[in-house]
């Protein structure tokens, strides 16, 4: 694909932008990079407190609930971050885009890399918390990063589509930005996979995120991996989807960029 070749020629730009973005986000703060740890800790404390108040009944998760939530939300954050950062990649960089001719995919990939990196720390952190709670982590852990790839690819591709739409008009995004929060509640993130309600159950069943998130998570915690067959097919579909989206982006980007107002 010629678009990937173009990006390869600009690989230094991609690397430099990613590194600078990562360091820049906490540059003007005393605590600096430690915010990467503090932020997820705040989230988990909130969850534990809410749970203590008896607000939720998360179902049987088999492991200490706070650790479970921390792990799940940090995996979910990978998807949510990807969407949030990548879908804004074009709009936020409209000035650069109107001044330079370079492969636009670089900006999307850079945002994607930042999102993945930012999500990576909470995931590592949550593994530490699991150990603290005395949960033994399975050896299948080694496949965990690989198993996350389909989720990353899916989040990235959806975000690329919305990045294009956003460059034209904001309406759909305003809607989808909210929808993605709801999406977390129809994916087994903060509760176990059997919610009881038949409607919710069937939504969860047909939701690809259930498998994209559930399978890698089960590699860490469960003796038997969760729905490996479904995971395989969903992953294959995601790969196809990603290729189509990338191709589409390559075709329309030139005439969409000009709708940006720099």
């Amino acid at each position, binding site marked *: 694909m010629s678009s990937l070749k173009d990006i390869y020629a600009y690989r230094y730009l991609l690397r430099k932008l990613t590194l600078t973005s990562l360091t820049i986000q906490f540059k003007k703060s005393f605590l600096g990079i430690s915010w990467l740890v503090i932020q997820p800790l705040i989230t988990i404390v909130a969850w534990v407190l809410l749970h203590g108040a008896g607000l939720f009944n998360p179902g049987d998760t088999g492991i200490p609930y706070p650790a479970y939530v921390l792990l799940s939300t940090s995996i979910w954050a990978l998807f949510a971050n990807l969407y949030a950062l990548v879908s804004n990649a074009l709009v936020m960089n409209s000035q650069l885009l109107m*001044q330079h001719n370079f492969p636009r995919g670089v900006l999307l990939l850079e945002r994607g890399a930042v999102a993945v990196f930012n999500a990576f720390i909470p995931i590592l952190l949550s593994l530490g918390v699991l150990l603290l709670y005395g949960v033994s982590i399975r050896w299948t852990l080694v496949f965990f990063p690989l198993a996350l790839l389909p989720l990353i690819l899916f989040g990235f591709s959806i975000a690329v589509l919305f990045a294009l739409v956003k460059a034209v*008009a904001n309406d759909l995004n305003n809607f989808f930005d909210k929808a993605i929060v709801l999406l977390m509640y129809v994916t087994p993130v903060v509760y176990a996979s059997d919610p009881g309600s038949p409607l919710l159950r069937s939504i969860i069943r047909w939701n690809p995120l259930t498998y994209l998130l559930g399978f890698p998570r089960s590699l860490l915690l469960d003796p038997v991996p969760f729905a490996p067959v479904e995971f395989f097919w969903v992953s294959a579909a995601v790969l196809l989807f990603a290729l189509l989206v990338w191709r589409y982006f390559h075709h329309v980007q030139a005439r969409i960029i000009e709708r940006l107002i720099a």
Partner: protein
Amino acid sequence: MKEASPDIIVEAGRLYKRFCRDMKWSMWYGMQDLLRKEKIKDPESLSLRRHEFWAVRDLSLQIRRGQAIGLIGRNGSGKTTLMRLISGIIPASFGKLEQQGRITPIFRLRSGMHPHYTGRDYIYIQAAMHGMSKKEIDEKADEVIRFAELEDFIDAPIGTYSSGMKARLGYSIAIASDFDLLIIDEALAVGDTEFRAKCLANLKEISQQKAIVFVSHNMDMVREVSNAIVVMDKGKKILESSDVEAGIDYYYRQLAEGGEKGAKPRTRIFIDKAAPLPPVSHNLPQQPLSHRLELISLHIPKTAGTSFRKILEKQYGPALTRLDIRNGKLLVDGKLFWGSSLPAKSKVIHGHFMYPALRQCLAEGKEKPKMITWLRHPVERVISNYYYLAERMARELNEEEKGLNLLMKMQKSLPEYAESDFARNRMSKFLEGTEPEDFFFIGLSERFESDVKELAALLGWKPGELPHVNKTGDYREGIDPEILERIAALNEKDMELYERVIALRKKSKR
């Protein structure tokens, strides 16, 4: 990419770019663009969608190595859009665009990067966007910092830089990239005078082996940098010339006509409504204009042609069209002409054009139009031309009022003028490629009144009063006979022509 001469960096043919003025409609068209690509077959017959306009229209341009093109035009004339098209930032709606080599654009708009980035980050990122590799940047970073004179600030956040500092840095990065074409779109406008001077010197050096397009409203800088000029208006290229001064003058005149407030012509030397526009090139029609004319009146300077034009005006009214061809540019009724045919009503043309150039512009039909011209004794004509120019210059410079008396101080004398190639044998040059016998009528300005009467009878003109003709008297009086002899010798060809025509006239009278 097609094989092209490596000297041609950009080849644009019939470029079109349309934009939408209204944001809501632009969003709607953008949604359509997401779903399909519109194919445009013929942009001129395309009816634009609501609120759309051509930001660039039917524009052809070639940019060659060694060229430093000054691109000028009013605000909103499409300059920046054209530059974005050429740099590949946005796609053209229609037309051919081929680029060779690296094109580095810098625009005035220069934020868009996080203000916490250090100057050094900025160098690396911008340079990488210009397509430079890490190695290349490492090698050149110090040079960039030195040129931008930012040694003490380079590790400070760029958010703390002044706009001039940012412009300096942006320019320094751009010239460090190994470009073939550098586009500077108002990017130097905010720099201080000293840095600008440095850039201008630098640009002159660069333009020897590379190409530059310099977009600016600062005509002094355009003059400094450019060796060619392009003027745009309403998305079109209205003039392209290698004569920068003429282009700037043309632009000012266009500004004055357009009535943009506050913009006053700086130089009025060339401005004269009756005179044709300054030399420009490239608007001669690719294919001859096919048009049926009855009469062609060729006006050799200082041969009573202006008086004759007044007579033609009376006789033919709107059917008379002024047409001039000078230095490869075609003017119709005093304006640069881009069309493919003359106004339908015109039957007669009159103006300054050399015969070979006319042949190039007008297709020859079956019925040849009648050709008329006027001659004058060559020595007399040269002297008259000299005095005319001297007088005109004095008038334009407004010497009396200013008390300058420049002309007296640096006047070119008549013998000097007569020696120049330009002044010699002008009548023969105008009639090159044709014979006096081809003409329906050749008048002599010395016998203007009687010749006009004779011609009126031949053409069956309605009787009318002849306009008063200025009797200029004999210029030769009081001039050193040696000089007169010299002028006659210099204009040997014209002398021959003149005598030949007199003989021919005698023959036909009989």
